[in-house]
């Protein structure tokens, strides 16, 4: 009789341990959707545009360098080669340029029309190029000791960031983030009108 009950006891014990282990494991955080990531990316790109505009009109060269460094940190993230920790600033580990590499991977997670996928790939390439130009200009501004030349470099930085954002204005424009948001029908959610 005892021998007949043994497999049942073992099975119950196994189930108990299994349920304990399962409960002990942390609940895996829900991954943000592609749409959420794109809206967050858009918000950070908008913030970088604001920082670039602060740098353009910075009253002193010290302020300009501060904003240029804030922008470099935002573009590169804390692991970037030009990252400098600024006092009391909370910066994301991943920069905008790091996220650029993942955009195509994000797009692969969602079903898209082939034509839309091609347009998104083009927009991503353009954005990557513009963000690199923006970073280079910001680094040039950081090296400049004089306010006017540094402000000129930050003007370029702003222009490249604006081009990466691609605000359509009725004239011909190169696809950028706005095209991606439009294809994902997120232009309203990102605070832009279609």
């Amino acid at each position: 009789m005892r021998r007949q009950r043994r497999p049942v006891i073992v099975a119950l014990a196994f189930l108990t341990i299994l349920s304990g282990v399962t409960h002990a494991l942390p609940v895996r955080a829900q991954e943000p959707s592609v749409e959420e990531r794109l809206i967050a990316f858009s918000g950070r790109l908008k913030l970088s545009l604001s920082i670039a505009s602060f740098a353009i009109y910075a009253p002193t060269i010290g302020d300009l360098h501060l904003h240029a460094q804030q922008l470099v940190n935002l573009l590169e993230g804390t692991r970037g080669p030009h990252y400098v920790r600024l006092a009391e600033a909370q910066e994301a580990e991943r920069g905008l340029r790091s996220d650029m590499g993942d955009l195509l991977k994000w797009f692969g997670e969602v079903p898209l029309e082939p034509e839309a996928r091609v347009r998104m790939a083009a927009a991503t390439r353009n954005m990557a190029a513009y963000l690199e130009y923006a970073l280079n200009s910001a680094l040039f501004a950081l090296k400049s000791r004089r306010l006017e030349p540094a402000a000129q470099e930050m003007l370029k930085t702003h222009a490249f960031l604006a081009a990466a954002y691609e605000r359509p204005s009725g004239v011909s424009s190169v696809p950028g983030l706005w095209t991606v948001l439009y294809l994902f029908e997120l232009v309203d959610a990102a605070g832009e009108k279609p």
Partner: protein
Amino acid sequence: MRSRTNRWRVNGSSTLNDPLAAVLPGLYSCSVPVQRWLRRNRTLVILAAIVVSLSAIGATLFTHNYLVLLHNAFQNRSLAYAHAFAAAAQPWADRSDVGMLRSASQLLLAGSAIYVQIAREGEFLIDERNAGKTESELGVVADPVSSVRRVSRTTGGSHLDIVIPLPLPEDAERASADTAEPGYIRIGIDCAGIAAQANGTIVIASGGAIGFDLVMVLVLFLALRGRRRDGDPSTFREAPVVAAGPLEVDLYRKSVRLEGRSVHLTPKQFALVELLSSEPGRVFSEREILAAAWPDSPYADAKDVKQYVYLVRQRLSEIDTNARRLIVTVPGFGYRLAVEDVDPELT
């Protein structure tokens, strides 16, 4: 020979026609060696004074104009900076996104901004301050208008107080355009950065002016010395030759001539004649003669003066026996060069 004579020197009152004395009356109240040096280098001193004055005026004008431009540029940039922040902050303010407004204001507070306030409907959305820099109470502005003013702090330094009204949100415009209170942003920009730059400019301008002065004085000195060495006849207008009657004292060549004939004098004897001829007729005390001829010797006394006066008289009498009377003893006072023997046209 008269053209080589220094009129300023041979006058009874030596400084009467001297432009240096007219400009700086106290200049000749200094010690005898300094007086002598000033007289010898009169041209240099006058030109150096002109150069120094001009460079000081130039440096002052440059500094003043540069500082005015610097402060205007700083004010304009600060206003544009505040407008850039207002443009960025307006969508967040419309959505009352306090977290985003606070983050954005922290970006500014890390630099020259000392406070950032954003108000809507008579209440602060954010009121961020840079600890230790803002001293005054900054309440809600009742009727905000676009303004920039410079505020001096009691703790030292100053800042620009910039207020920029924000337009009403679109929905508020539609709903209650008449009743809604307009919002505004208010930013304080510390002037410490520009003050440091201004101080740096003043130091650079002053240093530049001083450096320019030194170079110019050196150039003038070398140029004048070169002209003297080259024997340019025009330099003899300023050449230190003193004519006192039949006596001619060439300070440049350290020679004395009596009636056109050279009188051989030792350096001390020459110093004695030089002093007496510097102001013919004036009585020089033994003390003054000692200071001029034996400036570094504490042991020289009245006996030495007496002896050297005797020796000079002897030297002069070798040329002309009457010439010993050129140096007159004034009992109880000292010695003088006989004025009555000096060319009346020159006195």
